[in-house]
Structures are given as C-alpha cells and as structure tokens.
C-alpha cells in the first residue's frame, strides 16, 4: 500500500538523518570531552598562552591560532578575487572556447589531490620563494598561502558560478533588451544579485584553507612563532595537530592538540553563524548545486 510505503520511507530517511545528527554530536562531544581535562587539570591558561616551548613547560598555542587565521585569510585574499575573475572569464569576458576550457579545467581541479599540489610546490615554488625572499628557507606563510589559494579556488568558482549561471539565465534577455551588453549584464545585474553566492564561496574557501593540513605541514615551515612577515616560517593549528599527536598521551603537549581541535571547530562555528547572519536573498541555497 502506497501509504505504508510513505511511512516506511519517512521512517528510514528519518533514521538516516538521525544517524547523521548523532554523528555530528559525537564528533563535537568527543573532542570537547578530550579537551576538557586540559582545562580542569589546571593547564588551561598555559595552553591558551602565547609561547610554545615544551622544554620550558610553555604550551601556548595562540601563535598557531594566529597563523591559521592569517594563512586562511591571506589565501582567501588571493583566491577569492581570482575566483571572481575566473567567473567573469567563464561568463563572457574571454572568448567562448577559452571559457569552456577554463570551466573544464576548474571541474578537473576539484579532483586534484591536495597532496599533489603540496608535493609539486615543494620542488617548484619553495626554491622560487627562497630566491624571491632572499632569506629563509622558502618554507613560509607566503608559499603556503599561494598554494592554498589554488586549492580553494575551484570550489569557490563553482559555488559562485552556480548562482551566476542561474541568475544570468533569468536576467540576460531582460538586460539585453534594456541595452546592456553581456559584460554589463554580468557586472551590473547578475553579480549584485548573487551576493549570497559570493559570500558563501568566501566562507567555503576560508573553511577549506583553514582546515587544510598537508599544505601548511609541507610548505609553511612549522615554526611555532607569531606570524610577522609573509616570509616567516609559521605553524598552523592543523599542522600542529599533525606534529604533536606523536607525543606522550599524558603530556601537556598532547592535551594542547584537543584544544587546537576545539579552536578549529569554534572558528568554523563562528564562520557558519556569521554567514547565516548575513542578509542574503538566495543565501540559503547558495552552497548547493556546485557538484552539478
């Protein structure tokens, strides 16, 4: 009976959804539970200090938090305008064959493994940056930011383009009839109407950049210092987790890694909440459909 089928389907799907919800709760719960002893054990303030020097008993991870945020923001500052530029290219600012090629390239880039970027950059970009900077090892903030920008680029473009394409389809005849050419339609009509997608793309790119482990681990140098110059070696929270996981499970260093994990979660929560607070017209569905 069809009615029963509906009920069963609803039940099963609800179970799937409940599973997902439980999984989310479990991830957050476990990490907070493991981070808790750090604070109840009296090391809390030490972990939230500004110096990481395990030999002298200083386990502050704030420099790493700063490094993560700086790295992600700079990657975003490089990648987001490029993504916007690419969207413009794809939607009429360069000849159609090139545009098609670009779109195919960007689709392919989503399947480009991060570790491959890191590996290639290690032998191409790092020596170049070393020469360009004239000091240091070439393993630095700037190197990692450049590669991260590239890593986050295709997702940003596809999210932006999903909205732009939809809007353009809706508006292009109207715009043309009003005497706009294709570029003017994009710039004056479509892009302003896609603000939701543009900010969603930024949030997504930021999330991708701050969450990546391999690129900073391989390319940023991992020195646990406050970021001052773009040629400084810095250590992101993610790389910190990768490096410190190997220590004794009862040490303060080990505890710091769960605090690092929680900090990353909190940054992520903040970005999501900020995105929700943004006044967007089509923001709710902005991140959808980029797989298509």
């Amino acid at each position, binding site marked *: 009976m069809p009615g029963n089928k509906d009920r069963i389907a609803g039940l099963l799907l609800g179970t799937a959804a409940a599973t997902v919800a439980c999984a989310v709760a479990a991830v957050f719960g476990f990490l907070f539970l493991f981070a808790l002893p750090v604070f109840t054990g009296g090391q809390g303030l030490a972990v939230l200090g500004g110096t990481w020097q395990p030999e002298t008993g200083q386990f502050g991870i704030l420099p790493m938090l700063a490094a993560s945020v700086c790295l992600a923001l700079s990657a975003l500052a490089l990648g987001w*305008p490029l993504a916007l530029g690419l969207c413009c290219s794809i939607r009429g600012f360069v000849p159609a064959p090139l545009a098609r090629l670009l779109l195919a390239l960007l689709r392919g880039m*989503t399947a480009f493994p991060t570790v491959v970027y890191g590996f290639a950059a290690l032998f191409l970009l790092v020596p170049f940056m070393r020469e360009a900077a004239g000091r240091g090892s070439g393993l630095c903030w700037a190197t990692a930011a450049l590669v991260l920008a590239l890593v986050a680029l295709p997702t940003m473009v596809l999210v932006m383009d999903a909205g732009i394409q939809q809007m353009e389809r809706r508006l292009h005849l109207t715009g043309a009839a009003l005497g706009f050419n294709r570029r003017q339609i994009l710039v004056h009509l479509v892009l302003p109407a896609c603000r939701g997608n543009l900010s969603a793309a930024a949030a997504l790119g930021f999330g991708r950049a701050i*969450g990546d482990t391999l690129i900073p681990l391989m390319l940023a140098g991992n020195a646990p210092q406050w970021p001052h110059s773009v040629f400084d070696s810095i250590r992101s929270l993610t790389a910190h987790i990768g490096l410190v996981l190997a220590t004794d499970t009862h040490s303060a260093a080990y505890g710091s890694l769960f605090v690092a994990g929680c900090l990353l979660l909190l940054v992520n929560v903040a970005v999501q909440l900020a995105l929700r607070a943004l006044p967007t017209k089509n923001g709710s569905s902005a991140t959808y459909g980029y797989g298509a």
Partner: protein
Amino acid sequence: MKHPQLSLITAWAWFSALVVPAALTALTGVLLVRGHGALGSELFFGNVPALDAMTGRIPVWDGIWPACVGTLSLLGLTMLFALIPGIGCGVYLAAFARPAVRAWLGLALDLLAGIPSIVMGLFGFTLLLTLRRTLLPQTGPSLLLASACLALLVLPVLVTTTRGALEALPRQLSLSSAAMGLGQWATMRRVLLPAAGRGILGGVLLAAGRAAEDTAVIMLTGVVANAGLPAGVTARFEALPFTIFYRSAEYRDATELQQGFAAALVLLALSLSLLAGARMLQLALERRWEGTVVR
C-alpha cells in the same frame, strides 16, 4: 571608453584566466617532467612479477600497487558507509523534514562540513582510544576506522548536494506528481530523484574525490608506510596520497623521488578518471530514465 569599470574587470578576468591555468600547468609540468620516467611496472610492483604482485602471492614493498589497492578499498568502503545516510538525509531534508528539524539539522551539517579533516582524524583517534578502554580492547587503527571517519568527512557534501539538487527542481514537478496520485515516496523515487540525478551524482563525485585524496584523516586512523595489500577491514593499509606525502620527505635516492612524482601522476590520473567515468554514467542514467530514444 565610457566604462572604465568594465575595462578594469576585463583586465582582471584575463589575468585570472591566464594565471590560474599557468600555475596549474607549472605544477603538473613538474610532475610530468620529473615523474614520467618512472611510469612503468617497476613503479607499481617493484621487482616482483606483476601477476604475483596483483594476486598478493608475493608482497610488494617497493611499489605503489598496495597503495593503489588500499586507496580503492578505502574509497569503496567510505562510499558504502556514506552514500545511503548521505543521500537519505538529503532527501529527508528536502522533502520529509519539518521546518524546525530542517533548520537544526541544516546547521549541524554545515558545522560538520566545516570540520577540518585533521580534526576528523583526531576524532577517529579519540574514538579508538575510547573504544579500547571500554567495549573493544582489541581494536586498532584500521581500514574500517579510517573509512568510517572519511565517511563522516564527506557526508555533508552528499547531503547538501542531494538536498540542493532536489530543492532546485521546479516546485511544479512535485505538485504534478502529487496531483497524479503518486504518494510522497513514489513522487520522490519515480520523479524527483531521477530528475535530480545529475546534481546528486555530482555530489557523489565530489565526495568520492575528497575521499580519494584525503591524507589527514587516514594519517591518524590507520594508514602506514608499508603494509602490503590490505589484509582485511581490521588491518592497517597503504594509501596513495599518504605514500606520496611520505615519499616527498623520505626518499633515499633520485629513483625513489622520481617514483614519488610518478605516484602523484597516478593519483591524479585516478582522480580524473573517476570524474570522467561518473560523467559518462550520468548521461547513460539520464537517457534511461527519460525513456527517450536517440534520434
């Protein structure tokens, strides 16, 4: 020109259109130039005969064959775990959930989507420690654990794309189906899901791509430098991305480095062929559902 703003944007568009492909070409160029020499059976099987290596009769220690098999098993297992809950949850959110559930679950999923992969790995590790101290003292890092954590990592991608693809369908489609007397599930199964197939498959693809390339999660949950072919879901395993990461630092001589580059090429080819294969599958499925003949 009357529109300085436009010329500026044009210049920027051209700049991006040139600089991004150039950067990508440079990076892949490095791989090709330095890695193409190592492409060959030696890369995959070391000095073990290919047939013996593939059947696992002789373990491979110097080739990437076990890593390839490991990555594919990991991918398969991950999708096995993630597909049904992911798509199911997406369908639920798009069509069955009450508004309040939709809002909260949506938020939860967005949060899950933002979890960095190393943090997911950390979660897997804490889960493992907890399990060992309580229910299952014998468990260790394994293929099973790694793919479960990977499944969690890619779940939000599946859910949001499924939901998005369904919600992007014209509302009239579900109204029409309902008016024809199709129940909620029949509408979903017979009309909406097939119509949204392209978008959903895109999401599956994106998820598979992430599962195939992720290193951080598995680094904490069961991948090792050398293990041979995966011995089962409870054993440790090798995986291509980790092999590349490992080789990039641990190579002992020029040959091993060259093999690292070649391994990167192999992983790249694997990911891209995944993309191409799915695209073909998608076209075939669409044709079948529409019931139209090619003319």
